[in-house]
């Protein structure tokens, strides 16, 4: 097994008296796409800046390609950054922009021209752009130039600082696809900061969810989605249901009791339990799309309630159901139909599978 390309251990960052990062331990493997996700203020951008060298860590270690990065300035690191506002040099042509890192590295002219051409092909940019200036290009084209500039010197690690957050939906989607394609083609390690968990799920091999300077969970998109370690992580990707429950551990897992839920045999496997559980204050997590409404073949667990509201989302319809005994409404999502089959005020039967439950600590 090869050594990770980035290795952070117990990294702390203080801005004067304010602690921005608490004991971060994270490693990025060669060729991996890691996303740092979290709400604003969670410290993801600080962490990225520390990786790039624009900020110094206060304590802990950071190694990139096996070398300690303490006191190493950004210009000497094997990382390249893509800035949120792109930071294309307005007074230089597109060619000069992309060629800039190579010019600094004193590559011969012919080689520079060759590599710039390669980048053009890779990013699907037209050759005639080379003599133009950034302000003459569209937003999407500028993005691609920024990416080209950061990749032209074939860095080992690409750091992206929310590069897509300011774009409109259509452009964002097309560039997300670009990023994924680039990652597959180049095999460079990516560290991508975003506040959009959906984007992270789409692009990343592993996701690191952060809040208030702490790492809440590191895992694959599936891990994050189906086995969140923390209610915040669970709730971060849209709506989910967290039903309060108490547990009694058993040989294979645990038995549970939850308000408003009646199951044929209320038990879950060990694999469905998060670590660090308090048996008296547990939460059953069921994703809205796992629950059926008035289904013909009911599954083992059942709840009854009254529909309070519904939202037509196109591909799905989302219902909010008030179940007796539960403080919060239950959110259910069903495949969309041309006509909404259920109306507000109607009493409905909700069902879900035992195996769709994941239990976390409150």
């Amino acid at each position, binding site marked *: 097994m090869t050594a990770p390309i980035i290795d952070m251990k117990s990294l702390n960052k203080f801005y004067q008296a304010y602690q921005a990062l608490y004991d971060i331990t994270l490693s990025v493997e060669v060729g991996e796409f890691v996303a740092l996700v979290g709400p604003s203020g969670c410290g993801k951008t600080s962490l990225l800046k520390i990786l*790039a060298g624009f900020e110094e860590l206060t304590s802990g270690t950071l190694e990139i390609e096996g070398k300690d990065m303490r006191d190493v300035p950004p*210009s000497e690191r094997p990382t390249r950054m893509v800035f949120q506002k792109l*930071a294309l040099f*307005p*007074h230089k042509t597109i060619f000069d922009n992309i060629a800039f*890192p190579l010019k*600094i590295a004193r590559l011969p002219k012919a080689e520079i021209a060759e590599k710039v051409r390669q980048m053009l092909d890779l990013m699907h940019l037209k050759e005639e752009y080379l003599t133009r200036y950034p*302000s003459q290009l569209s937003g999407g084209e500028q993005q691609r130039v920024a990416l080209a500039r950061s990749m032209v010197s074939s860095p080992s690690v690409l750091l992206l600082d929310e590069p897509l957050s300011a774009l409109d939906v259509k452009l964002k989607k097309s560039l997300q696809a670009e990023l994924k394609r680039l990652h597959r083609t180049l095999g460079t390690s990516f560290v991508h900061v975003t506040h959009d968990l959906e984007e992270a799920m789409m692009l990343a091999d592993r996701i690191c969810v952060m809040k208030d300077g702490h790492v809440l969970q590191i895992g694959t998109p599936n891990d994050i989605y189906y086995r969140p370690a923390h209610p915040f992580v669970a709730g971060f990707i849209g709506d989910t249901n967290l039903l309060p429950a108490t547990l009694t551990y058993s040989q294979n897992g645990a038995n549970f009791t939850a308000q408003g839920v009646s199951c044929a045999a209320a038990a879950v496997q060990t694999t469905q339990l998060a670590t660090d559980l308090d048996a008296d204050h547990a939460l059953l997590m069921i994703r809205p799309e796992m629950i059926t409404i008035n289904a013909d073949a009911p599954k083992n667990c059942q709840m009854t309630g009254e529909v309070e509201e519904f939202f037509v989302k196109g591909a799905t319809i989302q219902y909010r159901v008030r179940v007796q005994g539960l403080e919060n409404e239950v959110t259910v999502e069903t495949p969309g139909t041309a006509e909404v089959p259920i109306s507000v005020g109607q009493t409905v039967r909700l069902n879900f599978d035992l195996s769709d439950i994941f239990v976390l600590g409150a």
Partner: protein
Amino acid sequence: MRIKNMSWRHPALQIATLPLLTVLVLFFLIPFGMTVLLSFQVTKLYQVAWSWDLTTWKDVFSHSYYWVIMARTLKMALICVVLCVFLGLPVAYALVNRLPSMENHVKILIVFAFLADAILKTFGWVLFFDRSGVLNGFLEVLGFGPAASDILFTPTAAMIAMVYNLLPYTIFTIYLSMMRIDRDLIAASYDSGASKLRTFWEITLPLSKPGLLAGAVLVFVLGLGVFLEPKIMGGGTSPLAAELIRQTFETRVNWPLGAALTIVVIGIGALTLMFFGYLLIKTTKSQGGNT
């Protein structure tokens, strides 16, 4: 900011612009026009005779004395520009990049020094540089002989005075330009592997060009018109254009000549302005309108 299209009939527009316009036309444009007129007149016996005459202009162009002075003024102004730009650059850069907390205080200090009365400041310099003044006093304490520094009444002293008065302008314009540079651009340059020096040369300096040019033009044009400080500090040995003009009016009472010379100086200033304005527009176009 919503911009309203106004026609000249609208009273609001009239109230806003006409007062200033009247003042400017009455007390600036017309006087200027009159000066032009005056240059075509001649003095006879200390009175202006209103006849249309090119004698004054022939006078101006024939006497090499005037052009020597013009050349000297031009030279001093140009040297002053170079000095002010070079000295202003590091200060402006420091203000933008190094002094986040002190920035305001430094600015206030500079503004205050700038606004203090001109003659008084010059007087202060004289006291400083005088044979028995402050500088020599210090030098004596340090072991140099008495009256070691003899800078007063030399062209060097005059140049010091000029730079002293005009340096704030370049500091200010370069500062304004540098402040608007996106910090991310500097970071991107570092990230691409450039050293601090390289970044300054490739990114900061080119993007400060508008400020540099504006400051240079300002200093040049204003430098053409100084006479007091150079005269006092320089000892009046090598008069500049403005001094010449003053003399022409006060001592020699040859108003048409004074008028003509004024127009020559203003003309040189205006031509420089237009030239640099053209340069500036060309530079901003290539940056895609980034100023």
